[in-house]
């Protein structure tokens, strides 16, 4: 069936909440599904016990999710905007990520943090950030970042069933993107990259919104006779290194596209991974597409300037083809 990214997430929540009574949702204004509608209507089907509107207390929302997860429930936290995970950073980085390990495996911590993120609509400096790189750097967390409605649904379902904490980065620019979603319940495994477009000349490794920008760039470049392969890792932790390497060994040229800031971001790390696995296969330096190292500005021309697009991807591809 055709549905949008937000509805696909909503479907995944419904399916998992029906399947497992331990699953509940918590967050600010989730009963009415503000701001992105993902949790809309859940209250009617599952009741107030399982759809909890919390006060503006990110540390308590995330911390309580861990307390519940340690003792038998499966919380799905809506961070409202990923930017606000800063208000619960200790709970994520020191508590959730570390407890299974520090306690010698005594506890499961099956929870999901839904992280709406990304640039767009002049959200400004506090509502536009890509912070996934911080969590890739924190051992004990799994990190997913879907680009299509089907992947969003499948990854969220898998994340909810995972016995360990999973962060799901949902680009807010994708919520109204429609795509084909299986009628049957379909899971997408973690650690399984997906080749969104096959091509022989260049491998573009892209996440979330940048997958679509890369596909657009690929269409344009095809007209110039350049065949671009677009590989979407879908989960960063675990990372499907095999699929990435297999593609690079065929194309010998790599572009890595993300929306986060250039410095110290996931793209820099992915470049390292590719180099580690495929150094001798590379015919050109890896090129990267990312935002410049500034906060996200408000004014449309400024915001547009820092937002990576198909143009940037196309330019990067041409560069590695030189």
């Amino acid at each position, binding site marked *: 069936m055709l549905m949008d990214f937000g509805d696909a997430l909503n479907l995944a929540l419904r399916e998992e909440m029906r399947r497992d009574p331990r699953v509940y949702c918590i967050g600010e204004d989730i009963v009415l599904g503000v701001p992105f509608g993902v949790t809309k209507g859940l209250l009617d089907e599952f009741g107030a016990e399982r759809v909890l509107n919390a*006060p503006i207390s990110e*540390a308590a929302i995330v911390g309580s999710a861990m307390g519940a997860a340690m003792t038998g429930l499966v919380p799905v936290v809506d961070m409202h905007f990923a930017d606000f995970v800063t208000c619960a950073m200790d709970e994520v980085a020191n508590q959730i990520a570390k407890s299974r390990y520090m306690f010698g495996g005594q506890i499961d911590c099956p929870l999901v943090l839904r992280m709406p993120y990304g640039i767009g609509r002049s*959200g400004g400096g506090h509502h536009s950030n890509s912070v996934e790189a911080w969590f890739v750097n924190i051992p004990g967390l799994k990190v997913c970042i879907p680009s299509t409605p089907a992947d969003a649904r499948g990854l969220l379902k898998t994340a909810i069933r995972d016995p360990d904490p999973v962060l799901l980065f949902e680009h807010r620019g994708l919520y109204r993107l429609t795509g084909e979603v299986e009628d049957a319940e379909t899971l997408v495994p973690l650690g399984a990259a997906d080749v969104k477009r096959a091509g022989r000349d260049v491998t573009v490794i892209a996440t979330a919104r940048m997958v679509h920008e890369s596909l657009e760039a690929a269409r344009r470049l095809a007209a110039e006779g350049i065949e671009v392969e677009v590989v979407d890792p879908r989960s960063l932790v675990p990372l499907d290194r095999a699929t990435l390497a297999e593609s690079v060994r065929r194309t010998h040229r790599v572009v890595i596209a993300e929306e986060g800031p250039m410095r110290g971001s996931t793209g820099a790390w992915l470049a390292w991974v590719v180099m580690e696995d495929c150094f001798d296969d590379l015919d050109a330096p890896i090129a990267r597409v990312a935002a410049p190292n500034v906060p996200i500005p408000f004014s*449309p021309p400024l915001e547009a300037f820092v937002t990576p697009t198909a143009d940037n991807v196309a330019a990067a591809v041409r560069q590695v083809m030189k």
Partner: protein
Amino acid sequence: MPGPDALLAMYAGMLRVRLFEERVRELFAGGRIPGFLHTSVGQEAIAVGAATALRPDDYVLSTHRGHGHLVAKGGSLRGLMAELYGKANGICHGKGGTMHIADVSVGYLGANGVLAAGCVLAPGVALSIRQRKSGQVALTFFGDGAANRGPFHEGVNLAALWRLPVIFLCENNRWASTTATGLSAAGGSIAARAAGYGLPGERIDGNDVLAVHAAVGRAAVRARAGEGPSLIEAATIRWVGHFEGDPQAYRSRDEAAEGRRTDPIARLARALEARGLLDAAAAGRIRAGVTAEIDDAVAHAEASPLPRPEDALTDLFAHYPWRD
């Protein structure tokens, strides 16, 4: 009790905030202003009662709903409107926008996209005030919802502990987005939390500009005397959506109606009329003057240039010659 001129200034001040916000809403609806917009229509008495009780050099720290606080503090309407438009000559060169406006020249140290952030910034502003022996105060606005975040606790405790010149002014407009205050603040009272830190806390009618002015005035005197911070909870009503475009499914139409019945501007107008300080003609002149200011600000913003795209790379550091 403020004198006639001060009262009339409050009246004009509230009208300026009201008409500015209503114009901003129109401009947003008309696609002239981008962003996630939160306006303070109905809450003008708090912004103006507070600003008029402070010295021009006192500091305020604001929120995501901060246009009115800046207008009341005396910020340039041209600079502010141009910023909301995202223009190059806006107060923040278009980098901040609605949730990140700042105008240090009038002591307005910034709106904030993160709730309750000002509660921990303010004690530091107060530390510098004390160190500089400047006799200023730092007032931070925050909402009823924001009062449930940790920084409220840490900031109030630190300011109380060190007897810092801070005023914590909570605008309780009954809602945090879709969530009623009673469903987010245990105990139902923000003011009641003050006692736990050994502080005075009072709940006032936030639709009575004189009550706000008096409460903030008392808190400022206390702060300047080195007696420490105060917590004020000002009850008010948000007439409009939480953000522009909010369907407001969570509340009944009656509330906006109640807001209009308790309109702080009409209320002050009646008081002024009763004392013979205002009549229809004078009211008309004031409105005309304020409207002219706003028309001018809009004309200025419309005529102003957008920033050059590459200006996105400026203002990050005072000086940064390095290649990244």
